[in-house]
């Protein structure tokens, strides 16, 4: 039975700012994460626009000097990685949806969940404070020995990332226990929605990899304060050891970013194709395949660092294995859509955008895994284009797909579908205009992180900058109609997409404890029939 938004729900359950700041409700914590992440995304996005603006004209000195440029790209990277992409889907959407999807009243440890939000914000505060001091200019990777020597306030950014890491660990821990211990009666492992499987695999990586980043950042802080010499060649240390430690976390972190997006896509495609998901088990298990391989490939970031030739060979081979579970997923999604009755609403559009962009990102990843090509491409714009196709084309598309898909559930309102389509095309066209030229620039040898470039690269750089304006416009439009929808959108039904997972079986927005009565699961959630439903389902 659908409840109108006037009845008791989690939004009107208690009132006032304090009730939000002290809430233990996973849905409210999820929204607080979501709005924080959106805020950081716009800050990181402004830095991105500044980078592109500086590169619009050949010759440097357009907007800023070289040192400022170093700080701007460092902030763009650090904010987008640590404060946007990593927390985006798990901490924001996952927090909101996962407990409802498994039919629970909350996550296993609600206090820890709230604590993880404040830990996250504390980390962000450190990064912001550093911004108003002397900033940081090391790039988001903090490579030694430069990060030991630079006179910027890199230590505050390191400390911020260290703290934010704990929030990621606690969220992962909470999700694993929630999935194990709080599933509704009848929700066996083989009926578990794929978004939950994806978050489970993500959580394992968060729990296993993030502590290694924590100790690495502590060592680097200590290196700056106490000159411990672990990474400093002057004192007998090894700067390449930092790269090993850093990528032992940061490569698996790439899968912290992408696996949840894959989970979102796995939910959306069957619903909007009106067909059962193809290869349920294969999609579920391949998440764990990716999580496992994630830990064995960090050395592919270091092919030119001087590590052993044999290690290069092994890392190259293992990296190519990533393509196998990833391919399994992509083919399963395509198989799901085959002969389905497709509905091209915003969530589905973003899911298709994900498929296109992520596949390009993934395949160029195989290029980069190839040793000989990698040596040529290292630290060029080819790499920049590759990981933007994966992170923006993958994670951000997944996030946008998820926001649109679950928007009616979160706020009990609908967004404006037409505006959503406009924003989608602006973003996806803008994205390709921005980043496709960067593949070519990289292949021609333009190095990344440079403040200026050779005159022959001018045209493609201009195209790329124009593309960044399209993306910017797209996100401004999206922000406008989404916030408008929250305030003035049409009332949403409990299940506007006619979907089967549990979160759609409760009212929109859900009551304080998610369900009025604990649901009992009797079937697999993906039995969709090829029907011509009007979407969204109207009253």
């Amino acid at each position, binding site marked *: 039975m659908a409840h109108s938004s006037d009845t008791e729900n989690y939004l009107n359950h208690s009132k006032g700012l304090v009730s939000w700041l002290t809430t233990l409700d996973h849905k409210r914590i999820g929204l607080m994460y979501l709005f924080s992440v959106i805020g950081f995304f716009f800050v990181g996005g402004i830095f991105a626009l500044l980078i592109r603006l500086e590169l619009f004209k050949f010759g440097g000195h357009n907007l800023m000097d070289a040192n400022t440029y170093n700080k701007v790209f460092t902030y763009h990277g650090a904010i987008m990685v640590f404060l946007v992409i990593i927390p985006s889907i798990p901490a924001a959407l996952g927090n909101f949806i996962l407990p409802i999807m498994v039919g629970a009243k909350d996550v296993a440890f609600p206090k820890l969940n709230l604590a993880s939000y404040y830990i996250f914000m504390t980390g962000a505060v450190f990064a912001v404070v550093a911004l108003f001091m002397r900033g940081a200019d090391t790039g988001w990777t903090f490579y030694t020995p430069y990060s030991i020597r630079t006179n910027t306030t890199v230590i505050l950014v390191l400390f911020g990332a260290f703290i934010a890491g704990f929030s990621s660990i606690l969220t992962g*821990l909470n999700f694993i226990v929630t999935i*194990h211990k*709080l599933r509704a009666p009848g929700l066996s492992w083989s009926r578990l929605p794929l978004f939950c499987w994806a978050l489970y695999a993500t959580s394992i990586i968060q729990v296993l990899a993030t502590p290694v980043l924590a100790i690495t950042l502590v060592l680097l802080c200590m290196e700056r304060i106490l*000159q411990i010499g*672990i990474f400093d060649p002057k004192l007998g240390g090894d700067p390449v050891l930092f790269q090993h430690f850093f990528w032992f976390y940061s490569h698996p972190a790439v899968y912290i970013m992408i696996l949840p997006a894959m989970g979102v896509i796995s939910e959306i495609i069957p619903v909007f194709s009106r067909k059962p998901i193809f290869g349920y088990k294969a999609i579920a298990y391949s998440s764990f395949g990716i999580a496992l391989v994630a830990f064995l490939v960090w050395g592919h970031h270091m092919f030119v660092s001087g590590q052993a030739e044999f290690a290069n060979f092994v890392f190259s081979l293992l990296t190519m294995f990533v393509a196998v579970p990833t391919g399994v997923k992509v083919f399963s999604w395509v198989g799901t859509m085959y002969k389905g009755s497709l509905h091209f609403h915003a969530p589905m559009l973003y899911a298709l955008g994900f498929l296109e962009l992520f596949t390009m990102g993934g395949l160029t990843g195989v290029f980069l895994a190839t040793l000989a090509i990698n040596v040529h491409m290292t630290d060029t714009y080819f790499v920049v284009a590759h990981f933007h196709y994966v992170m923006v084309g993958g994670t951000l598309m997944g996030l946008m797909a998820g926001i649109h898909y679950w928007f009616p559930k979160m706020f009990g309102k609908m967004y404006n579908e037409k505006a959503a389509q406009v924003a989608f095309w602006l973003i996806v066209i803008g994205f390709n205009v921005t980043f496709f030229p960067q593949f070519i620039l990289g292949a021609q040898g333009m190095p990344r992180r440079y403040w200026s470039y050779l005159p022959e690269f001018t045209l493609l750089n201009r195209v790329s900058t124009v593309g960044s304006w399209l993306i910017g416009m797209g996100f401004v439009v999206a922000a406008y109609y989404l916030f408008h929808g929250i305030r003035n959108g049409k009332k949403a039904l409990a299940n506007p997409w006619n979907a089967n997972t549990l979160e759609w079986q409760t009212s929109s927005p859900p009551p304080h404890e998610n369900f009025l009565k604990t649901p009992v699961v009797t079937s697999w959630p993906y039995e969709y029939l090829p029907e011509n439903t009007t979407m969204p389902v109207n009253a």
Partner: protein
Amino acid sequence: MSNEDMAVHHHAHHFANADDEFEAAKQGMWIFLVTEVLMFGGLFVAYGIFRGLYPEMFHEAHQYLAVKMGAVNTVVLITSSLTMALSVSSTQKGRKSQAILFLILTFILASCFLVVKYFEYTHKFHDGLLPGGFFHNTELTTPKAPLFFSLYFLMTGLHGVHVLIGMGLIAWMVKRSLKNEFSPQFYTPVELVGFYWHFVDLVWIYLFPLLYLVG
């Protein structure tokens, strides 16, 4: 109000029953300990790499550590693990005063550990056996020796911080125990602090031989 009434623990609203809650809490703690293993793991890997690079230096430098004090501390910590385990089992059996006694004993043993550590550290400071760039001992002239003391202070320092946190948790358990919060039906926090404390003990069992004995 009698003690029994006060000891009744109501499980949190989102769990079906107290058993589920207990199992979830235990699983959460195990996962947390895994993250701890990985965090210390970074330091152990650094130790392994530099020991492989500079084996002679490690041998020279490790002779400057106080083996006897380290050995005493090993015994102290293992004993504290025993008293912690006894306190958990006393709580499970509802023997409150015994449980509190064992908790206090554990706390005292942990303090002993830190006192010994304090003397070790001050001695090292006095001799100039300091990490990295601050090293100024004139007797130990083996090249790269400062690196050994960087690792020594980092590894034992991070462990020491864990001991301090553990003492805080044990004190908190004493306080809650005095307030009759635990019973044979509900002893989750004591059990979990026990998990944590055994982990802290276990780390030292690796640190002691690696730093003091084999160098």
